[in-house]
């Protein structure tokens, strides 16, 4: 084969005033045909008398899917300009592929039309979806309360075994990460405090700073956020996967309530575990604070301990615990809600986990803001 034959060449010719002929030669295998569409468009613009589009591929040596796709675009373009097609000049294989892809007429099956959504319809459907999402949020809360009511009356399809396993998974097994994060938070708070307070000769108050911050804020918030990423996401993924595997459907067809059987143990486990984790987090934060005080400020354990005890009021301590429990509820709620709402695909499960974490963290921070305002108003 001569060297020139391997370069694809496209020529647009007017064989008669009415006929536009596209002559393609050379080797189109893995080689692009530049400007084909533009040439056809220009030619049809220049001579509006054109009524037929023909192909001549006698000089064509090879072609691939890209070639077929290009021809299909030419055909679509020709249709838009009301040109009649004469595809006899295309290679047999290309014609068959185009027919199969329903670009040329002749395929027997019905072709499902693509319904184009109008703008207002889209807006309306989104709005309805948002509205239903909000309703779903409260429905889920109501279902939770009903399930809790059934549990208290001893009528729930609830297994304490499951709840205990989830408690173990979300409580003791989270101690490591809770300890590490809160220890570091303690260090950071103490360092910031030490540098600022030492300028006023008040570096002993590092203990107050760390203690109050831990008990009122960081202990519960950090633990909540850790649990959100660790356990909330896991809840969403577990329930989402159960949805995909039809496990939740299977429960429902046995008349077993997924709310009582799956959601309630998770809610209860987190609400019960969070206070313990918070107390632990508070303690570890203080240890972090103390280790900075001891090494940088040479504070003795005794003094640090006394200052801490003096600084923390029972109210603050209880506030932290209540907040922790509430954050536990939020984490379990968002995790379970997103998991139960998950779609039936692997991607939907991933999305459910992501949305659970995003919603959980947002809810924790937002509700902490509300707690702060309330505490200020109530002088706690």
């Amino acid at each position, binding site marked *: 084969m001569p060297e020139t034959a391997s370069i694809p060449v496209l020529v647009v010719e007017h064989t008669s005033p009415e006929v536009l002929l596209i002559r393609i030669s050379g080797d189109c295998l893995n080689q692009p045909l530049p400007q084909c569409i533009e040439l056809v468009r220009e030619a049809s613009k220049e001579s509006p008398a054109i009524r037929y589009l023909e192909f001549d591929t006698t000089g064509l040596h090879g072609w691939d899917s890209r070639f077929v796709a290009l021809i299909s675009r030419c055909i679509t373009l020709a249709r838009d300009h009301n040109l009649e097609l004469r595809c006899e000049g295309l290679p047999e294989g290309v014609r068959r592929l185009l027919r199969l892809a329903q670009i040329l007429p002749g395929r*027997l*099956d*019905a072709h499902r039309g693509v319904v184009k959504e109008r703008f207002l319809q889209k807006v309306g*459907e989104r709005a309805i979806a948002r509205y239903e999402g909000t309703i779903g949020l409260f429905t889920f809360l109501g279902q939770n309360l009903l399930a809790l009511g059934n549990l208290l009356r001893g009528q729930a*399809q609830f297994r304490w075994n499951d709840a205990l396993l989830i408690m173990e998974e979300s409580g003791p097994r989270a101690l490591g990460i809770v300890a590490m994060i809160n220890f570091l938070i303690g260090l950071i708070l103490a360092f910031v405090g030490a540098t600022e307070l030492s300028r006023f000769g008040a570096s002993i108050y590092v203990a107050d700073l760390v203690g109050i911050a831990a008990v009122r804020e960081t202990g519960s918030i950090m633990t909540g956020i850790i649990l959100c990423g660790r356990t909330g996401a896991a809840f969403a993924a577990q329930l989402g*996967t*159960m949805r995909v*595997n*039809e*496990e939740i*459907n*299977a*429960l*429902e*067809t*046995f*008349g*077993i*309530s997924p709310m009582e059987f799956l959601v309630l143990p998770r809610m209860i486990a987190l609400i019960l575990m969070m206070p313990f984790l918070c107390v632990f987090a508070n303690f570890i934060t203080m240890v972090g604070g103390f280790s900075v005080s001891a090494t940088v400020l040479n504070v003795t354990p005794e003094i640090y301990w006394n200052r801490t005890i003096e600084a923390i009021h029972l109210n603050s301590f209880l506030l932290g615990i209540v907040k922790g429990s509430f954050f536990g509820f939020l984490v379990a709620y968002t995790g379970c809600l997103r998991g139960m709402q998950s779609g039936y695909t692997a991607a939907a499960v991933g999305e459910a986990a992501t949305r659970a974490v995003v919603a959980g963290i947002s809810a924790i921070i937002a509700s902490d803001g509300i707690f702060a305002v309330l505490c200020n108003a109530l002088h706690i």
Partner: protein
Amino acid sequence: MNADDTKAEIRNLTMAYGSYLVMRNVSARIKRGSVFVIMGESGAGKSTLLRTMVGLQPPQEGDVLYDGRSFWELDEDSRRVELRKFGVLFQSGALWSSMTVAENVELPLVEYTDWSPGDRRDVVRLKLALVGLEGFEAYYPSELSGGMRKRAGLARAMALDPEILFFDEPSSGLDPILSRNLDELMLELRDSLGATLIVVSHELASIFTIADDSIFLDSESKTVRAQGNPRELRDHSPDSKVRAFLTRGEFTGPAATT
């Protein structure tokens, strides 16, 4: 068919996902102790119909009646009670993945019977033996093959000796021999338990083996296109689309030419 013979009745059922209509005005009567097959093209709404029949998806209009009693007009608690008469085998088996095979079969018994643990264990062993899974009690679903999971799902569906067994595409993912075994097992269950079987399928070999009666759901008209014994429909249906479906298009030409 007189009323006493009718175990279940689908009455003027219309289903939709949002604004997308899945089926309209679907009606059928299912005879007690028969094998009833819901067949049709992919996307014709077979599984949706099954979901409505087992209480997973409320209909937009219409109702399903069991033993002459409305199912969807019941309140949720009564519907849950009604559900205990059903056994459902899902396409993938849908075993609860955090439990062993035995625990899967046992859970319905724990929830709804006051049997002693020993009795429950015996029943679980029996149900697993019925599906050829004796000895797999302690296995987790992830340790089983697809066919075994499906059989374990069937054992679970049979746990409460249901009056009606639903099957969603029982043959999918099974090799021809296993699929054949499952067909035989289904017929055996119908005969021995006296249960009514409602099967969603488009596996022709299986349909001809098991079905006493069937409906053909059409994705174009979105309703029942034919009802009757599949063999008779294949040989005598006046509708060429139905004949084409039941002969894989071999004798009447491609389906859409009708």
